[in-house]
């Protein structure tokens, strides 16, 4: 049976149906989902009216999972199985987590990404994040009354390739089609920029629960151009809580607490931090498991003093970003504050002092990222003309490969606009060398050991040659999500090797399949139904897109080509409403194949048009 499509009130369903798309802010502390409704970006609340979903997941002994408020409520009673701030572990190894010993979790040092042992088994941060995303997906689908075409998921701008890949995998695991990974500060800029119709250079200062980003953007007639970005993917509100926690221990003469007491005091520390936003002092009172009473008073001045160096750690990347953008502080027209942690008065003061101006806080710092992501999701889903604005983002960290002596040769510098490709030639150092090992790294430092290892692969079968005469061309390609793929080719012989960078810190497709199979039978049926729905949605969109393209530019084709495309369309139409998702998939592939040269012709035409317009206006001028 054909699925019914629901359109927005007041809009006709054809020919352009409104496609349901959302923006998701997958935060360290809280997560949100937003969508564009009647042209306005709105955050979707849960049944109880809450917008913020605590990013907390609890695993129970019977295998069931709870995410959000209910999980958060149990974090002190069941800390080992209640995972908070999981974002900090995405794409990270155990050695990357500096305070692992202070955390109540049972970490498992798996190759690549750290895992967590829970009462329901060992879970990867990707699986934990997927639980949060599933709740948001369900919330959105119930609220919007239909299956989502896709979502824009935001990531800290300073996330490296491993962290981005992990985020995308989590979304896939949650059954979400990722339209784009979008940098959080850029999302915030969209929400602000479109609101205020501003022009000029803006700084977005984004201090979240566990990450800090600074982005310098230039806004001009419909273009958001990121000039530079910097940050610290292990610095956020959690560190402020940690400072208060340590202060409580010191003040109360406590040491070596159990996991439950640790979590209890961290919860009190966070509450105290929030209290100090509006009060000059706050009382912290708690009874520990052994009956000890904690009763201390913290003043705002004390809190300011103990967090001074955390603020300094945000200003250092800020200076670097400005330097990379080749701008001085007085060239910045406005400063946008993002993230719940920017509510702290000392943060606002430090930022105001640094930039010599009062930062903008007119949009809710907790919601602004999700609102911006929703606006972008709406465009990417094809609900708007698409010529409204253009977003040009960059990679946050340089990419390179290992060369002799454990040194890194940078191939793509940080702040390169994406999508981007760079190639560099290398050669062999031994006579008759038949293979070359390629080690891909990300970071700014010179030594391999100081950068993040993203992948290793080998180019084999290099024909025997004298040392130095092979020409090995290594190409880096970064897509619009900021994800890297690398290929290597010996140019004399044509020997090739390629890798999508995800082995070391990401999940292989097999892992995702296994995780999906781990889910119970009911969930699996649900997955199959979802897969079918997704294929059908994709097929209908493709048919609609090709129909429109033929109507617009059919004259670019000869009759035979048009016939061929129409035949493929008929083939797909014949199966689209059936229950065989593989047949639909094959039909989609066939139609994609049949339209390759048509798509090329259309692209050439639109590029030529862009330039032609220019020529004419110039001729008139002269």
């Amino acid at each position, binding site marked *: 049976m054909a699925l019914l499509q629901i359109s927005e009130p007041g809009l006709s369903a054809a020919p352009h149906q409104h496609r349901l798309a959302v923006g998701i802010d997958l935060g360290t502390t809280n997560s949100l989902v937003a969508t564009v409704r009647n042209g306005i970006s709105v955050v979707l609340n849960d049944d109880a009216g809450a917008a913020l979903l605590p990013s907390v997941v609890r695993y129970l002994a019977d295998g069931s999972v709870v995410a959000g408020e209910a999980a958060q409520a149990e974090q002190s009673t069941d800390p080992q199985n209640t995972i908070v701030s999981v974002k900090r572990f995405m794409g990270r190894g155990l050695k990357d987590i500096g305070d692992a010993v202070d955390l109540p979790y049972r970490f498992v040092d798996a190759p690549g990404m750290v895992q967590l042992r829970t009462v329901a088994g060992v879970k990867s941060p990707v699986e934990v994040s997927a639980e949060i995303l599933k709740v948001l997906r369900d919330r959105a689908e119930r609220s919007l009354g239909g299956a989502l075409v896709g979502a824009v998921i935001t990531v800290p701008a300073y996330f490296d390739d491993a962290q981005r890949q992990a985020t995308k995998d989590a979304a896939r695991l949650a059954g979400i089609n990722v339209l784009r990974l979008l940098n959080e500060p850029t999302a915030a800029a969209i929400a602000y920029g479109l609101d205020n119709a501003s022009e000029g250079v803006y700084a977005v200062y984004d201090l979240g629960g566990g990450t800090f980003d600074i982005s310098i953007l230039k806004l001009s007639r419909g*273009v958001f151009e990121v000039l530079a970005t910097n940050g610290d993917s292990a610095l956020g509100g959690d560190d402020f809580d940690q400072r208060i926690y340590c202060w409580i221990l010191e003040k109360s003469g406590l040491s070596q607490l159990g996991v439950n007491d640790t979590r209890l005091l961290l919860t009190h520390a966070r509450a105290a931090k929030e209290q100090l936003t509006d009060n000059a002092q706050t009382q912290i009172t708690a009874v520990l498991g052994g009956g000890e009473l904690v009763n201390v008073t913290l003043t705002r001045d004390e809190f300011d003093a103990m967090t001074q160096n955390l603020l300094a750690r945000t200003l250092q990347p800020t200076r670097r970003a400005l*330097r990379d953008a080749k701008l001085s502080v007085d060239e910045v027209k406005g400063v946008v504050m993002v993230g719940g942690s920017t509510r702290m008065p000392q943060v606002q003061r430090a930022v105001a002092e640094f930039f010599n101006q009062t930062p903008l806080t007119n949009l809710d710092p907790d919601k602004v990222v999700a609102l911006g992501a929703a606006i972008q999701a709406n*465009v990417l889903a094809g609900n708007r003309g698409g010529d409204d604005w*253009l*977003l040009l983002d960059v990679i946050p960290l340089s990419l390179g490969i290992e060369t002799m002596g454990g040194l890194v040769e940078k191939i793509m510098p940080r702040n390169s606009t994406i999508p981007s490709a760079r190639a560099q030639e290398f050669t062999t150092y031994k006579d008759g060398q038949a293979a070359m090992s390629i080690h891909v790294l990300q970071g700014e430092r010179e030594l391999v050991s100081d950068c993040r290892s993203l992948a290793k692969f080998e180019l084999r079968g290099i024909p025997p040659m004298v040392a130095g005469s092979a020409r090995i061309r290594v190409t880096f390609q970064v897509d619009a999500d900021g994800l890297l793929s690398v290929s290597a080719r010996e140019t004399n012989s044509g020997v090739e090797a390629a890798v999508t960078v995800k082995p070391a810190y990401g999940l292989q497709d097999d892992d995702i399949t296994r995780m999906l199979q781990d889910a119970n039978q009911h969930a699996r049926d649900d997955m199959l139904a979802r897969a079918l729905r997704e294929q059908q949605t994709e097929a209908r969109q493709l048919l609609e*897109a*090709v129909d429109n393209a033929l109507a617009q530019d059919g004259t670019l084709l000869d009759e035979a080509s048009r016939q061929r495309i129409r035949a493929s369309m008929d083939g797909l139409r014949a199966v689209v409403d059936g229950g065989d998702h593989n047949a639909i998939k094959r039909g989609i592939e066939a139609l*994609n194949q049949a339209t390759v040269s048509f798509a090329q012709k259309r692209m050439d035409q639109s590029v030529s048009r862009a330039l*032609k317009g220019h020529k004419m206006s110039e001729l008139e001028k002269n």
Partner: protein
Amino acid sequence: MNVGSADLQQDFYALFSLPRSFQLDSAALDSRYRELQNQVHPDKFAHLSDTERRLSVQWATRVNEAYQTLRSPLARGRYLLSLHGVDTQEETNTAMPVDFLMQQMELREALEEARQSKEMAALDELEARVKQMIGALQQQLALALDEQRDDAAAAGIVRKLKFMEKIAEEIGAAFDELDS
């Protein structure tokens, strides 16, 4: 002039419809870059077929590469010479004039000194000096390429610029170092 059919293989100047010279209208470059990205950027194709998405990534990548190349005077000079069939031999040709090498050594010593003494002001001063020298070399390059049409001389200036750019990069790294 007829623009003809756009294709991925055409040179960067043709892609932006700009005359093939070292000196160029940077405002025109910026605005055409944006117009082209407006047509080809993956965000405009996210809801379309795989084929169209792939093509869009290829085009957007090419447009970014062209823009980065033409925007940077060093990369632009090198690229223009390559269009003339001249290889700048930046890795292989190390026969630099003696006075230039002396100057390089002196700059490196100054950088090392500023780094050791952790003096921001000294670093600022060095950066300004290097910037000025780079500006002078760029003027020479414009002269050699656009007026004198002396590709051999131009290749020599490109090699010098490469040295200067390296120093400028190291000054940037020294700033980062002082800041941490």
